[in-house]
Protein backbone atom coordinates (compact mmCIF):
# COMPACT_ATOMS: atom_id res chain seq x y z
CA UNK A 1 0.00 0.00 0.00
CA UNK A 2 2.72 2.42 0.96
CA UNK A 3 4.50 1.70 -2.29
CA UNK A 4 1.37 2.43 -4.28
CA UNK A 5 0.87 5.67 -2.39
CA UNK A 6 4.43 6.74 -3.09
CA UNK A 7 4.07 5.88 -6.74
CA UNK A 8 0.94 7.95 -6.89
CA UNK A 9 2.74 10.90 -5.34
CA UNK A 10 5.56 10.64 -7.83
CA UNK A 11 3.11 10.46 -10.70
CA UNK A 12 0.93 13.18 -9.28
CA UNK A 13 3.70 15.60 -8.46
CA UNK A 14 4.24 17.14 -11.91
CA UNK A 15 0.50 17.33 -12.41
CA UNK A 16 0.04 19.14 -9.15
CA UNK A 17 2.83 21.50 -10.09
CA UNK A 18 1.20 22.27 -13.43
CA UNK A 19 -2.09 22.92 -11.71
CA UNK A 20 -0.41 25.39 -9.36
CA UNK A 21 0.93 27.31 -12.32
CA UNK A 22 -2.51 27.49 -13.86
CA UNK A 23 -4.20 28.36 -10.59
CA UNK A 24 -3.34 31.98 -11.11
CA UNK A 25 -6.17 32.41 -13.59
CA UNK A 26 -8.53 29.52 -12.94
CA UNK A 27 -11.63 30.50 -10.99
CA UNK A 28 -12.93 27.58 -8.99
CA UNK A 29 -16.54 28.78 -8.97
CA UNK A 30 -16.56 29.25 -12.73
CA UNK A 31 -14.96 25.87 -13.27
CA UNK A 32 -17.44 24.13 -11.00
CA UNK A 33 -20.38 25.75 -12.79
CA UNK A 34 -19.13 24.87 -16.27
CA UNK A 35 -18.44 21.25 -15.29
CA UNK A 36 -21.90 20.94 -13.74
CA UNK A 37 -23.37 22.56 -16.83
CA UNK A 38 -21.60 20.05 -19.04
CA UNK A 39 -23.22 17.25 -17.05
CA UNK A 40 -26.60 19.00 -17.34
CA UNK A 41 -26.26 19.28 -21.10
CA UNK A 42 -25.21 15.63 -21.27
CA UNK A 43 -28.51 14.65 -19.66
CA UNK A 44 -30.41 16.40 -22.45
CA UNK A 45 -29.55 13.74 -25.02
CA UNK A 46 -30.92 10.78 -23.04
CA UNK A 47 -33.82 13.12 -22.21
CA UNK A 48 -34.34 13.70 -25.91
CA UNK A 49 -34.28 9.93 -26.42
CA UNK A 50 -37.27 9.63 -24.07
CA UNK A 51 -38.95 12.70 -25.55
CA UNK A 52 -38.78 11.17 -29.01
CA UNK A 53 -39.20 7.57 -27.81
CA UNK A 54 -42.64 8.25 -26.37
CA UNK A 55 -43.86 9.79 -29.60
CA UNK A 56 -43.18 6.85 -31.91
CA UNK A 57 -45.07 3.57 -32.29
CA UNK A 58 -44.32 0.95 -29.64
CA UNK A 59 -42.55 -1.26 -32.20
CA UNK A 60 -39.98 1.52 -32.85
CA UNK A 61 -39.37 2.79 -29.32
CA UNK A 62 -35.99 1.13 -28.89
CA UNK A 63 -34.66 2.09 -32.31
CA UNK A 64 -35.57 5.72 -31.59
CA UNK A 65 -33.98 5.75 -28.14
CA UNK A 66 -30.95 3.88 -29.46
CA UNK A 67 -30.23 6.56 -32.06
CA UNK A 68 -29.87 9.30 -29.44
CA UNK A 69 -28.05 7.12 -26.94
CA UNK A 70 -25.62 5.82 -29.55
CA UNK A 71 -24.89 9.35 -30.73
CA UNK A 72 -23.64 10.23 -27.24
CA UNK A 73 -20.92 7.62 -27.68
CA UNK A 74 -20.21 8.15 -31.37
CA UNK A 75 -19.90 11.92 -31.27
CA UNK A 76 -17.98 12.02 -27.99
CA UNK A 77 -15.21 9.96 -29.58
CA UNK A 78 -15.41 12.08 -32.74
CA UNK A 79 -15.25 15.28 -30.69
CA UNK A 80 -12.19 14.47 -28.59
CA UNK A 81 -10.27 13.11 -31.57
CA UNK A 82 -11.06 15.59 -34.33
CA UNK A 83 -14.16 17.68 -33.62
CA UNK A 84 -12.68 20.00 -31.01
CA UNK A 85 -9.69 20.98 -33.07
CA UNK A 86 -11.79 21.47 -36.23
CA UNK A 87 -14.04 23.81 -34.28
CA UNK A 88 -11.73 25.57 -31.83
CA UNK A 89 -8.26 25.08 -33.32
CA UNK A 90 -6.43 28.12 -34.72
CA UNK A 91 -8.66 29.71 -37.35
CA UNK A 92 -7.77 29.13 -41.00
CA UNK A 93 -9.22 31.85 -43.25
CA UNK A 94 -12.38 32.15 -41.19
CA UNK A 95 -13.45 28.75 -42.45
CA UNK A 96 -12.21 25.97 -40.18
CA UNK A 97 -9.99 25.30 -37.18
CA UNK A 98 -6.54 23.86 -37.75
CA UNK A 99 -5.74 20.30 -36.75
CA UNK A 100 -3.11 21.32 -34.20
CA UNK A 101 -5.20 20.01 -31.30
CA UNK A 102 -6.07 16.67 -32.88
CA UNK A 103 -6.74 14.15 -30.12
CA UNK A 104 -6.73 17.17 -27.77
CA UNK A 105 -2.96 17.45 -28.32
CA UNK A 106 -1.45 20.23 -26.25
CA UNK A 107 -4.66 21.03 -24.39
CA UNK A 108 -3.33 19.44 -21.21
CA UNK A 109 -4.23 21.44 -18.14
CA UNK A 110 -4.14 24.80 -19.90
CA UNK A 111 -6.43 27.61 -18.93
CA UNK A 112 -8.93 28.48 -21.64
CA UNK A 113 -7.78 31.49 -23.67
CA UNK A 114 -9.67 34.59 -22.43
CA UNK A 115 -11.36 32.41 -19.82
CA UNK A 116 -11.22 31.49 -16.18
CA UNK A 117 -11.72 27.75 -16.56
CA UNK A 118 -9.50 24.87 -17.64
CA UNK A 119 -9.65 24.34 -21.39
CA UNK A 120 -10.67 20.74 -20.73
CA UNK A 121 -13.83 21.95 -18.99
CA UNK A 122 -14.64 23.86 -22.16
CA UNK A 123 -13.88 20.75 -24.25
CA UNK A 124 -16.31 18.74 -22.12
CA UNK A 125 -19.02 21.41 -22.21
CA UNK A 126 -18.77 21.82 -25.98
CA UNK A 127 -18.67 18.05 -26.42
CA UNK A 128 -22.23 17.81 -25.10
CA UNK A 129 -23.37 20.41 -27.64
CA UNK A 130 -21.77 18.47 -30.47
CA UNK A 131 -23.58 15.38 -29.17
CA UNK A 132 -27.10 16.73 -28.88
CA UNK A 133 -27.17 18.52 -32.24
CA UNK A 134 -27.20 15.44 -34.49
CA UNK A 135 -29.49 13.69 -31.99
CA UNK A 136 -32.11 16.38 -32.64
CA UNK A 137 -32.13 15.46 -36.34
CA UNK A 138 -33.19 11.89 -35.58
CA UNK A 139 -36.73 13.11 -34.89
CA UNK A 140 -37.17 13.93 -38.57
CA UNK A 141 -36.29 10.48 -39.90
CA UNK A 142 -37.69 8.39 -37.04
CA UNK A 143 -39.23 4.97 -37.69
CA UNK A 144 -37.70 4.28 -41.12
CA UNK A 145 -33.91 4.70 -41.32
CA UNK A 146 -31.52 1.76 -41.27
CA UNK A 147 -29.18 1.85 -38.29
CA UNK A 148 -26.00 1.28 -40.28
CA UNK A 149 -26.70 4.13 -42.68
CA UNK A 150 -27.73 6.31 -39.74
CA UNK A 151 -24.34 5.81 -38.04
CA UNK A 152 -22.36 6.66 -41.16
CA UNK A 153 -24.52 9.66 -42.01
CA UNK A 154 -24.42 11.15 -38.51
CA UNK A 155 -20.65 10.80 -38.24
CA UNK A 156 -20.12 12.53 -41.59
CA UNK A 157 -22.66 15.19 -40.65
CA UNK A 158 -20.87 15.96 -37.39
CA UNK A 159 -17.50 16.26 -39.13
CA UNK A 160 -18.48 18.15 -42.27
CA UNK A 161 -21.50 20.21 -41.20
CA UNK A 162 -21.52 20.72 -37.44
CA UNK A 163 -17.81 21.35 -36.90
CA UNK A 164 -17.45 24.00 -39.64
CA UNK A 165 -20.66 25.79 -38.59
CA UNK A 166 -19.69 25.81 -34.92
CA UNK A 167 -16.30 27.19 -35.97
CA UNK A 168 -17.87 29.93 -38.08
CA UNK A 169 -19.97 31.18 -35.17
CA UNK A 170 -17.99 30.31 -32.02
CA UNK A 171 -14.49 29.43 -33.15
CA UNK A 172 -13.54 32.79 -34.62
CA UNK A 173 -14.85 32.04 -38.11
CA UNK A 174 -16.40 34.47 -40.57
CA UNK A 175 -19.86 34.69 -38.99
CA UNK A 176 -18.31 35.70 -35.68
CA UNK A 177 -16.32 38.37 -37.52
CA UNK A 178 -19.51 39.53 -39.18
CA UNK A 179 -20.95 40.28 -35.74
CA UNK A 180 -23.66 37.61 -35.57
CA UNK A 181 -24.65 36.63 -32.04
CA UNK A 182 -25.54 33.10 -31.01
CA UNK A 183 -25.34 32.74 -27.25
CA UNK A 184 -25.91 29.02 -26.87
CA UNK A 185 -26.63 27.63 -30.31
CA UNK A 186 -29.74 28.86 -32.08
CA UNK A 187 -27.95 28.86 -35.41
CA UNK A 188 -25.34 26.23 -34.82
CA UNK A 189 -27.58 23.75 -33.10
CA UNK A 190 -31.25 24.33 -33.77
CA UNK A 191 -31.36 25.79 -37.27
CA UNK A 192 -28.67 23.42 -38.45
CA UNK A 193 -30.30 20.29 -37.01
CA UNK A 194 -33.87 21.30 -37.87
CA UNK A 195 -33.16 22.20 -41.49
CA UNK A 196 -30.97 19.13 -41.95
CA UNK A 197 -33.83 17.05 -40.55
CA UNK A 198 -36.25 18.55 -43.05
CA UNK A 199 -33.82 17.83 -45.89
CA UNK A 200 -33.35 14.21 -44.84
CA UNK A 201 -37.04 13.51 -44.28
CA UNK A 202 -37.80 14.82 -47.77
CA UNK A 203 -35.07 12.64 -49.30
CA UNK A 204 -36.02 9.59 -47.26
CA UNK A 205 -39.74 9.83 -47.99
CA UNK A 206 -42.78 9.44 -45.79
CA UNK A 207 -43.36 6.60 -43.39
CA UNK A 208 -45.41 3.66 -44.64
CA UNK A 209 -49.07 4.61 -44.36
CA UNK A 210 -48.41 8.28 -43.51
CA UNK A 211 -51.65 10.23 -43.75
CA UNK A 212 -53.72 7.03 -43.99
CA UNK A 213 -52.98 5.04 -40.85
CA UNK A 214 -53.14 6.60 -37.42
CA UNK A 215 -49.63 7.43 -36.15
CA UNK A 216 -50.11 8.14 -32.48
CA UNK A 217 -47.53 8.61 -29.76
CA UNK A 218 -47.37 5.28 -27.93
CA UNK A 219 -46.34 6.58 -24.50
CA UNK A 220 -46.91 10.24 -23.74
CA UNK A 221 -45.82 10.08 -20.09
CA UNK A 222 -42.39 9.03 -21.41
CA UNK A 223 -42.40 12.07 -23.68
CA UNK A 224 -43.24 14.33 -20.74
CA UNK A 225 -40.39 12.81 -18.73
CA UNK A 226 -38.05 13.46 -21.65
CA UNK A 227 -39.22 17.06 -21.99
CA UNK A 228 -38.69 17.63 -18.27
CA UNK A 229 -35.12 16.31 -18.53
CA UNK A 230 -34.54 18.55 -21.55
CA UNK A 231 -35.84 21.61 -19.71
CA UNK A 232 -33.64 20.79 -16.70
CA UNK A 233 -30.58 20.24 -18.85
CA UNK A 234 -31.24 23.44 -20.77
CA UNK A 235 -30.17 25.49 -17.73
CA UNK A 236 -26.68 24.11 -18.28
CA UNK A 237 -27.03 24.65 -22.01
CA UNK A 238 -27.89 28.35 -21.75
CA UNK A 239 -26.66 29.52 -18.35
CA UNK A 240 -23.54 27.39 -18.73
CA UNK A 241 -22.76 29.20 -21.97
CA UNK A 242 -21.77 32.20 -19.86
CA UNK A 243 -18.70 30.03 -19.10
CA UNK A 244 -18.69 31.38 -15.59
CA UNK A 245 -20.69 31.50 -12.36
CA UNK A 246 -21.72 35.11 -12.73
CA UNK A 247 -24.53 37.58 -13.39
CA UNK A 248 -24.62 36.74 -17.08
CA UNK A 249 -25.25 33.09 -16.20
CA UNK A 250 -28.07 34.16 -13.90
CA UNK A 251 -29.55 36.30 -16.67
CA UNK A 252 -29.42 33.38 -19.10
CA UNK A 253 -30.98 31.13 -16.46
CA UNK A 254 -33.99 33.37 -15.87
CA UNK A 255 -34.51 34.22 -19.54
CA UNK A 256 -34.46 30.47 -20.28
CA UNK A 257 -37.07 29.73 -17.65
CA UNK A 258 -39.24 32.68 -18.67
CA UNK A 259 -39.23 31.83 -22.37
CA UNK A 260 -39.94 28.14 -21.78
CA UNK A 261 -42.86 29.04 -19.53
CA UNK A 262 -44.28 31.64 -21.92
CA UNK A 263 -44.09 29.26 -24.88
CA UNK A 264 -45.79 26.50 -22.89
CA UNK A 265 -48.65 28.87 -22.19
CA UNK A 266 -48.94 30.16 -25.74
CA UNK A 267 -48.84 26.69 -27.36
CA UNK A 268 -51.45 25.30 -24.96
CA UNK A 269 -53.76 28.29 -25.40
CA UNK A 270 -53.52 28.48 -29.17
CA UNK A 271 -54.13 24.74 -29.45
CA UNK A 272 -57.02 25.04 -27.04
CA UNK A 273 -58.59 27.72 -29.23
CA UNK A 274 -57.74 25.98 -32.50
CA UNK A 275 -58.61 22.36 -31.64
CA UNK A 276 -60.85 22.68 -28.63
CA UNK A 277 -58.66 20.93 -26.02
CA UNK A 278 -55.50 21.83 -24.13
CA UNK A 279 -53.07 18.88 -24.49
CA UNK A 280 -50.04 17.70 -22.55
CA UNK A 281 -48.20 16.96 -25.82
CA UNK A 282 -48.87 20.58 -26.71
CA UNK A 283 -47.56 21.76 -23.33
CA UNK A 284 -44.28 19.87 -23.62
CA UNK A 285 -43.87 20.80 -27.30
CA UNK A 286 -44.40 24.41 -26.29
CA UNK A 287 -41.74 24.34 -23.59
CA UNK A 288 -39.22 22.92 -26.06
CA UNK A 289 -40.17 25.56 -28.64
CA UNK A 290 -39.59 28.28 -26.06
CA UNK A 291 -36.27 26.80 -24.96
CA UNK A 292 -35.13 26.63 -28.58
CA UNK A 293 -36.23 30.20 -29.28
CA UNK A 294 -34.40 31.70 -26.28
CA UNK A 295 -31.20 29.72 -26.87
CA UNK A 296 -29.42 32.22 -29.16
CA UNK A 297 -30.71 35.18 -27.11
CA UNK A 298 -30.41 33.94 -23.50
CA UNK A 299 -27.25 35.91 -22.67
CA UNK A 300 -28.13 39.05 -24.62
CA UNK A 301 -31.71 39.93 -23.70
CA UNK A 302 -33.59 41.01 -20.57
CA UNK A 303 -36.28 38.85 -18.91
CA UNK A 304 -39.32 40.66 -20.35
CA UNK A 305 -38.22 40.34 -23.97
CA UNK A 306 -37.55 36.68 -23.13
CA UNK A 307 -41.22 36.28 -22.23
CA UNK A 308 -42.18 37.76 -25.61
CA UNK A 309 -39.65 35.60 -27.45
CA UNK A 310 -41.03 32.48 -25.80
CA UNK A 311 -44.66 33.48 -26.28
CA UNK A 312 -44.20 34.12 -30.00
CA UNK A 313 -41.99 31.02 -30.32
CA UNK A 314 -44.79 28.78 -29.05
CA UNK A 315 -47.26 30.22 -31.54
CA UNK A 316 -44.90 30.17 -34.52
CA UNK A 317 -43.84 26.57 -33.88
CA UNK A 318 -47.43 25.47 -33.35
CA UNK A 319 -48.31 26.98 -36.71
CA UNK A 320 -45.35 25.22 -38.30
CA UNK A 321 -46.23 21.75 -37.05
CA UNK A 322 -50.02 21.89 -36.94
CA UNK A 323 -50.76 23.96 -40.04
CA UNK A 324 -47.81 24.28 -42.42
CA UNK A 325 -46.66 20.66 -42.12
CA UNK A 326 -50.19 19.37 -42.80
CA UNK A 327 -50.53 21.63 -45.82
CA UNK A 328 -47.18 20.73 -47.35
CA UNK A 329 -47.48 17.06 -46.43
CA UNK A 330 -43.83 16.25 -45.62
CA UNK A 331 -43.25 13.63 -42.93
CA UNK A 332 -41.03 15.31 -40.33
CA UNK A 333 -42.05 12.52 -37.97
CA UNK A 334 -41.31 14.16 -34.61
CA UNK A 335 -41.11 17.77 -35.80
CA UNK A 336 -37.38 18.35 -35.69
CA UNK A 337 -37.81 21.10 -38.28
CA UNK A 338 -41.07 22.50 -36.97
CA UNK A 339 -39.72 23.01 -33.46
CA UNK A 340 -35.94 23.33 -33.82
CA UNK A 341 -35.66 24.77 -37.33
CA UNK A 342 -38.50 27.25 -36.98
CA UNK A 343 -37.93 27.98 -33.28
CA UNK A 344 -34.21 28.49 -33.91
CA UNK A 345 -34.90 30.84 -36.80
CA UNK A 346 -37.28 32.92 -34.71
CA UNK A 347 -34.76 33.00 -31.86
CA UNK A 348 -31.97 34.17 -34.14
CA UNK A 349 -34.17 36.97 -35.50
CA UNK A 350 -35.37 37.88 -32.00
CA UNK A 351 -31.76 38.20 -30.85
CA UNK A 352 -31.33 40.85 -33.53
CA UNK A 353 -34.38 42.67 -32.17
CA UNK A 354 -33.95 42.59 -28.39
CA UNK A 355 -30.21 42.13 -27.70
CA UNK A 356 -28.81 44.85 -25.50
CA UNK A 357 -25.36 45.71 -24.23
CA UNK A 358 -26.81 46.45 -20.82
CA UNK A 359 -27.12 42.67 -20.35
CA UNK A 360 -23.92 41.68 -22.10
CA UNK A 361 -21.28 44.29 -22.99
CA UNK A 362 -19.66 41.71 -25.26
CA UNK A 363 -22.88 41.55 -27.28
CA UNK A 364 -24.51 44.25 -29.35
CA UNK A 365 -27.62 46.42 -29.42
CA UNK A 366 -30.52 45.06 -31.45
CA UNK A 367 -33.13 46.88 -33.51
CA UNK A 368 -35.22 47.90 -30.50
CA UNK A 369 -32.11 49.34 -28.83
CA UNK A 370 -31.14 51.53 -31.73
CA UNK A 371 -29.14 49.56 -34.28
CA UNK A 372 -30.07 47.48 -37.29
CA UNK A 373 -26.55 46.12 -37.90
CA UNK A 374 -27.09 43.14 -35.64
CA UNK A 375 -30.37 42.17 -37.27
CA UNK A 376 -28.68 42.22 -40.69
CA UNK A 377 -25.85 40.03 -39.38
CA UNK A 378 -28.41 37.65 -37.88
CA UNK A 379 -30.28 37.40 -41.18
CA UNK A 380 -27.07 36.65 -43.10
CA UNK A 381 -26.17 33.97 -40.56
CA UNK A 382 -29.60 32.38 -40.86
CA UNK A 383 -29.25 32.18 -44.63
CA UNK A 384 -25.78 30.66 -44.29
CA UNK A 385 -27.02 28.09 -41.77
CA UNK A 386 -29.96 27.10 -43.98
CA UNK A 387 -27.73 26.83 -47.05
CA UNK A 388 -25.13 24.72 -45.28
CA UNK A 389 -27.75 22.44 -43.75
CA UNK A 390 -29.64 21.89 -47.01
CA UNK A 391 -26.67 21.49 -49.34
CA UNK A 392 -24.52 19.59 -46.86
CA UNK A 393 -27.23 17.15 -45.81
CA UNK A 394 -28.26 16.59 -49.42
CA UNK A 395 -24.72 15.76 -50.51
CA UNK A 396 -24.00 13.53 -47.51
CA UNK A 397 -27.31 11.71 -47.88
CA UNK A 398 -26.66 11.03 -51.57
CA UNK A 399 -23.13 9.93 -50.74
CA UNK A 400 -24.26 7.46 -48.07
CA UNK A 401 -27.12 6.13 -50.20
CA UNK A 402 -24.70 5.46 -53.06
CA UNK A 403 -23.13 2.59 -51.14
CA UNK A 404 -25.62 1.68 -48.39
CA UNK A 405 -29.30 0.97 -48.03
CA UNK A 406 -30.58 4.01 -46.16
CA UNK A 407 -34.22 3.14 -45.67
CA UNK A 408 -35.63 -0.12 -44.32
CA UNK A 409 -37.78 -2.27 -46.64
CA UNK A 410 -41.54 -1.80 -46.49
CA UNK A 411 -42.07 -5.15 -44.78
CA UNK A 412 -39.40 -4.33 -42.18
CA UNK A 413 -41.06 -1.01 -41.52
CA UNK A 414 -44.37 -2.79 -40.89
CA UNK A 415 -42.68 -5.30 -38.58
CA UNK A 416 -41.01 -2.45 -36.64
CA UNK A 417 -37.39 -1.39 -36.38
CA UNK A 418 -36.86 -2.72 -32.85
CA UNK A 419 -37.06 -6.36 -33.92
CA UNK A 420 -35.75 -5.96 -37.45
CA UNK A 421 -32.76 -3.70 -36.71
CA UNK A 422 -31.97 -4.54 -33.10
CA UNK A 423 -33.51 -7.95 -32.40
CA UNK A 424 -35.15 -6.85 -29.15
CA UNK A 425 -38.44 -5.38 -27.97
CA UNK A 426 -39.32 -2.49 -25.69
CA UNK A 427 -42.33 -4.19 -24.14
CA UNK A 428 -42.47 -7.93 -23.62
CA UNK A 429 -45.86 -9.58 -23.98
CA UNK A 430 -47.33 -11.20 -20.91
CA UNK A 431 -47.82 -14.37 -22.90
CA UNK A 432 -44.79 -15.38 -24.84
CA UNK A 433 -43.71 -18.66 -26.27
CA UNK A 434 -40.51 -19.53 -28.04
CA UNK A 435 -37.27 -21.27 -27.29
CA UNK A 436 -34.42 -19.94 -25.29
CA UNK A 437 -31.49 -20.76 -27.50
CA UNK A 438 -29.13 -20.15 -24.61
CA UNK A 439 -25.97 -18.10 -24.89
CA UNK A 440 -25.09 -17.07 -28.39
CA UNK A 441 -21.99 -19.24 -28.72
CA UNK A 442 -23.92 -22.41 -27.91
CA UNK A 443 -26.66 -21.67 -30.32
CA UNK A 444 -25.08 -20.10 -33.34
CA UNK A 445 -26.47 -22.78 -35.62
CA UNK A 446 -30.05 -22.16 -34.49
CA UNK A 447 -29.49 -18.44 -34.66
CA UNK A 448 -28.28 -18.70 -38.22
CA UNK A 449 -31.35 -20.66 -39.06
CA UNK A 450 -33.75 -18.18 -37.60
CA UNK A 451 -32.03 -15.16 -39.12
CA UNK A 452 -32.18 -16.86 -42.49
CA UNK A 453 -35.85 -17.51 -41.90
CA UNK A 454 -36.27 -13.82 -41.19
CA UNK A 455 -34.51 -12.66 -44.33
CA UNK A 456 -36.20 -15.17 -46.58
CA UNK A 457 -39.61 -14.09 -45.40
CA UNK A 458 -39.41 -10.35 -45.39
CA UNK A 459 -43.13 -9.86 -45.00
CA UNK A 460 -43.33 -11.75 -41.77
CA UNK A 461 -44.59 -9.78 -38.84
Amino acid at each position, binding site marked *: MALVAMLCMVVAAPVAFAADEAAATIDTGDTAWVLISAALVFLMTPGLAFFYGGMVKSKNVLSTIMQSFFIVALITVEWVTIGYTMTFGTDINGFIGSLEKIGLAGVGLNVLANGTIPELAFVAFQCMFAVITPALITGAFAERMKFGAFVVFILLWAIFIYNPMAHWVWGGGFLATLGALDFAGGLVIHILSGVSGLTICLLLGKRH*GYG*KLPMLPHHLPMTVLGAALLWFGWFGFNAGSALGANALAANAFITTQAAAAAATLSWVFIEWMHNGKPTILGAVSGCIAGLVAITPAAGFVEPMPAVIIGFVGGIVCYAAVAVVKQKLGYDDALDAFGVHGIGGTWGAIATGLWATKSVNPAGADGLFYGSSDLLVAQMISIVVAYALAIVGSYVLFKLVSSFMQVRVDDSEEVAGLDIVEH*GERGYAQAI*MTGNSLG*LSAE*ASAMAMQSSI*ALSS*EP*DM*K
Partner: protein
Amino acid sequence: MRKLTKIDIITRSNKLEELKEALNAIGVQGMTVSQVYGCGLQKGHKEVYRGREYAINLLPQVKVETVVCEVPVQTVLDTAQKVLKTGKVGDGKIFVFDLENAVRIRTGEAGDQAIMDEK
Protein backbone atom coordinates in the same frame (compact mmCIF):
# COMPACT_ATOMS: atom_id res chain seq x y z
CA MET B 1 -85.52 -14.85 -36.28
CA ARG B 2 -83.10 -14.69 -39.15
CA LYS B 3 -79.90 -16.74 -39.14
CA LEU B 4 -76.93 -15.16 -37.37
CA THR B 5 -73.35 -15.83 -38.44
CA LYS B 6 -70.23 -14.99 -36.49
CA ILE B 7 -67.08 -14.29 -38.50
CA ASP B 8 -63.58 -14.13 -36.98
CA ILE B 9 -60.79 -12.67 -39.06
CA ILE B 10 -57.22 -13.03 -37.81
CA THR B 11 -54.72 -11.03 -39.83
CA ARG B 12 -51.83 -8.54 -39.95
CA SER B 13 -52.31 -5.56 -37.66
CA ASN B 14 -51.25 -3.01 -40.26
CA LYS B 15 -54.20 -4.07 -42.44
CA LEU B 16 -56.78 -3.27 -39.77
CA GLU B 17 -57.70 0.22 -40.94
CA GLU B 18 -58.17 -0.92 -44.54
CA LEU B 19 -60.24 -3.93 -43.48
CA LYS B 20 -62.45 -1.85 -41.24
CA GLU B 21 -63.16 0.63 -44.03
CA ALA B 22 -63.95 -2.14 -46.51
CA LEU B 23 -66.34 -3.85 -44.05
CA ASN B 24 -68.05 -0.56 -43.27
CA ALA B 25 -68.53 -0.05 -47.01
CA ILE B 26 -70.50 -3.30 -47.35
CA GLY B 27 -72.66 -2.52 -44.34
CA VAL B 28 -70.79 -4.24 -41.53
CA GLN B 29 -70.60 -1.52 -38.89
CA GLY B 30 -70.05 -3.27 -35.58
CA MET B 31 -67.01 -5.29 -34.70
CA THR B 32 -64.79 -6.24 -31.78
CA VAL B 33 -61.05 -5.96 -32.33
CA SER B 34 -58.33 -7.43 -30.16
CA GLN B 35 -54.58 -7.73 -30.31
CA VAL B 36 -53.71 -11.39 -30.35
CA TYR B 37 -50.55 -13.46 -30.61
CA GLY B 38 -50.32 -16.63 -32.57
CA CYS B 39 -48.18 -19.00 -34.51
CA GLY B 40 -48.65 -21.00 -37.64
CA LEU B 41 -46.58 -21.20 -40.77
CA GLN B 42 -44.71 -18.03 -39.87
CA LYS B 43 -41.33 -18.95 -38.43
CA GLY B 44 -40.71 -16.15 -35.97
CA HIS B 45 -37.45 -14.34 -35.39
CA LYS B 46 -34.42 -14.18 -33.12
CA GLU B 47 -34.03 -11.81 -30.18
CA VAL B 48 -30.86 -11.45 -28.11
CA TYR B 49 -30.63 -10.04 -24.57
CA ARG B 50 -27.09 -9.69 -23.18
CA GLY B 51 -25.91 -12.62 -25.24
CA ARG B 52 -28.84 -14.91 -24.45
CA GLU B 53 -30.78 -15.73 -27.58
CA TYR B 54 -34.43 -16.52 -27.99
CA ALA B 55 -36.35 -17.79 -30.99
CA ILE B 56 -39.64 -15.96 -30.68
CA ASN B 57 -42.36 -17.76 -32.60
CA LEU B 58 -45.49 -16.14 -31.19
CA LEU B 59 -46.24 -13.21 -33.43
CA PRO B 60 -48.63 -10.28 -33.06
CA GLN B 61 -51.81 -10.21 -35.19
CA VAL B 62 -55.24 -8.65 -34.83
CA LYS B 63 -58.52 -10.50 -34.46
CA VAL B 64 -61.67 -8.89 -35.83
CA GLU B 65 -64.93 -10.47 -34.65
CA THR B 66 -68.24 -9.55 -36.17
CA VAL B 67 -71.75 -10.95 -36.44
CA VAL B 68 -73.88 -10.59 -39.58
CA CYS B 69 -77.42 -11.41 -40.64
CA GLU B 70 -78.47 -9.01 -43.41
CA VAL B 71 -75.12 -8.80 -45.16
CA PRO B 72 -74.37 -12.07 -47.00
CA VAL B 73 -71.55 -14.05 -45.42
CA GLN B 74 -69.95 -14.61 -48.80
CA THR B 75 -69.73 -10.84 -49.37
CA VAL B 76 -67.84 -10.47 -46.10
CA LEU B 77 -65.48 -13.29 -47.01
CA ASP B 78 -64.81 -11.92 -50.49
CA THR B 79 -64.25 -8.38 -49.22
CA ALA B 80 -61.92 -9.49 -46.43
CA GLN B 81 -59.87 -11.65 -48.77
CA LYS B 82 -59.59 -8.90 -51.34
CA VAL B 83 -58.21 -6.50 -48.76
CA LEU B 84 -56.02 -8.89 -46.82
CA LYS B 85 -54.44 -11.15 -49.40
CA THR B 86 -50.78 -10.41 -50.10
CA GLY B 87 -49.95 -13.97 -51.09
CA LYS B 88 -47.33 -14.27 -48.37
CA VAL B 89 -47.29 -16.33 -45.22
CA GLY B 90 -48.91 -14.37 -42.41
CA ASP B 91 -52.00 -13.11 -44.24
CA GLY B 92 -54.10 -14.90 -41.64
CA LYS B 93 -57.32 -16.94 -41.39
CA ILE B 94 -61.07 -16.40 -41.45
CA PHE B 95 -63.38 -18.58 -39.34
CA VAL B 96 -67.15 -18.73 -39.86
CA PHE B 97 -69.58 -19.95 -37.15
CA ASP B 98 -73.34 -20.41 -36.90
CA LEU B 99 -74.54 -18.33 -33.98
CA GLU B 100 -77.35 -19.46 -31.73
CA ASN B 101 -78.45 -16.16 -30.30
CA ALA B 102 -77.47 -12.60 -29.38
CA VAL B 103 -78.81 -10.12 -26.81
CA ARG B 104 -78.53 -6.34 -26.71
CA ILE B 105 -78.07 -5.71 -23.02
CA ARG B 106 -79.41 -2.15 -23.00
CA THR B 107 -82.85 -3.07 -24.44
CA GLY B 108 -83.10 -6.81 -23.95
CA GLU B 109 -83.67 -7.32 -27.70
CA ALA B 110 -82.61 -10.75 -28.89
CA GLY B 111 -81.62 -12.42 -32.16
CA ASP B 112 -81.21 -10.32 -35.32
CA GLN B 113 -82.77 -7.30 -33.54
CA ALA B 114 -79.83 -7.32 -31.12
CA ILE B 115 -77.21 -6.83 -33.77
CA MET B 116 -79.03 -4.59 -36.26
CA ASP B 117 -78.29 -0.89 -35.97
CA GLU B 118 -81.26 1.27 -35.03
CA LYS B 119 -82.31 3.33 -38.00
